């Protein structure tokens, strides 16, 4: 049952996770993930046929409220932590050609 993580998979997971790994880190991540997945595979011993996946322990219902603004303009506070800002906005690298 030993899991094998390919170079392509670790590359793809890096894209999903938005992490850039060095060659050495990639090898380590592969080994770590293989080991974890082997362990996680023990769940396959368990018959879960017909069991509903439980995302919440208690039944959760959507919570509705009147659409009334309860916050004042917090843009100054919010922007205070921005690494870069400009004209009362977050500044990011150019995204469209």
């Amino acid at each position, binding site marked *: 049952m030993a899991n094998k993580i390919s170079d392509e998979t670790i590359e793809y997971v890096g894209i999903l996770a938005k992490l850039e790994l060095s060659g050495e880190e990639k090898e380590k991540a592969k080994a770590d993930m293989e080991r974890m997945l082997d362990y*996680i595979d023990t769940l396959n011993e368990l018959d879960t046929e017909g069991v509903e996946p*439980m995302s919440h322990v208690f039944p959760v219902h959507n919570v509705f409220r009147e659409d009334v603004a309860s916050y004042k303009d917090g843009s100054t506070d919010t922007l205070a932590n921005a690494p870069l800002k400009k004209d009362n906005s977050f500044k990011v690298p150019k995204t469209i050609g």
Partner: protein
Amino acid sequence: MDITSLTAVELGKKIRAKEISVAEAVKASFDQIERVERDVHSFVTIDKEGAFKRAGEIQKQIDDGSLQSPLAGVPVAVKDNMCTKDMLTTCSSKILQNFKPAYTAEAVRNLEKAGAVIIGKTNMDEFAMGSTTETSYFGATRNPWNLGHVPGGSSGGSCAAVAAEESPYALGSDTGGSIRQPSAFCGVVGIKPTYGTVSRYGLIAYGSSLDQIGPVAKDVTDCAVILEVIAGHDPKDSTSIDRNIYIHSASAETNGLKAGSPNLAGYDFTGALKEDVAGMRIGIPRDYFGEGLDAEVKEKILAAVRELEVRGAVAEEFDLSLVQYAIPAYYVIASAEASSNLARFDGVKYGCRTEEYEGLHNMYKKTRSEGFGEEVKRRIMLGSFVLSSGYYDAYYLKALRTKALIKQAFDQAFAKYDVIIAPAAPTTAPELGKSLSDPMKMYLSDIYTISVNLAGLPGISIPVGRDSKGLPVGMQIIGNCFEEHKIIRAAYTLEQTRSYERPESAGMRGEGGDR
């Protein structure tokens, strides 16, 4: 008088009786921090100036009678994953090393309303991922009982600060045992409440379906009082539950609760501080006392169970089952949620941004790769994988199905027992530097605490003696959802049979430790 040896409630009483001023109480904490912090390193941020300023304000409100809470004027340390307005909140991560939130977490706000004085923010495993507080970007915290050992984690800073008497009490958070296990390792008391009891608003999320904030203190009374202050329904947290309404609802019955059960299932936690376990049915899961459990830990816990039996409780062994599946299910669920929750740290809105980059995606990747530590990256990678198309059903949904079965196993157990007693951890605190090299082994050390989070149950960790190395042993009492009152009653009863033990580092001034 030895102010720092007092419990939070005792100190609050003396403050309200004008025997001790708020400034004196705050000064006592900072004096102790001065003495021991170099060795213990419980804190990431210490706010002396802010605390003394606040002490003056609180003193006025106590003097004019407008503030009467049991915690008024009592200093508190807050785990560094709870937002505190204008005060650094780092999650012990490089990526948030300069983050000052624009608002305060609801649980902390509740403390502030009760007149608490925040003295600082405590160290933790980075983003609460770890069991030793060694993954902190700011360096490890040490166990006040033995500086060569870890305090446990991830709320290691909070528990060490309480044990070393730098703070009378603290807030921690618990996703897989992060309050109960370090409380056990540091010889203090900690409660992880029923999921939904304390608002998660302003708690920087790790595994949202598992995270709960809870108290860490010297005794059960403190914990009940603190929990009463921080708990409550909060519309700002969609998973927050109004316990007063819920316990009377039909869905409560499907969770094994009888509608209209006594109000103790609401928010009255101090009402359970009773020395009475007569007829209480205690389940001892055989699967928690087998292979892997340290013999001395086992002996101390079974001795504590016998004390409860002497006082009228009825203990019985049973098979909980599915124990070996809790950890793999947890790591799938927690990592999946973490990968999603931590996507917000991208160098745009807060935290650090990498120096040099080409374009947006490169900026994201470099920022995150430089800003996160190894364990955090490991879990984000695993989480991204189990949620990716092609693997989602096999891993993520499988784990959620396993979670449903684990919940069922607890439901069956609580049909027979009032509480379940278990170790908080398989061993006492390990030595520093021995855990991170083998993450899998570290994960396994959470075996007795993790399923409680998966099932949303409340659990308390309480000291039950020390091993031959002199390190504290912690016992966990687990209750059914909304039955904090039972675990508090059992823990309080047991606590009456023993006296609180202080580490030498806490009492190093040479003044007697008689409390």
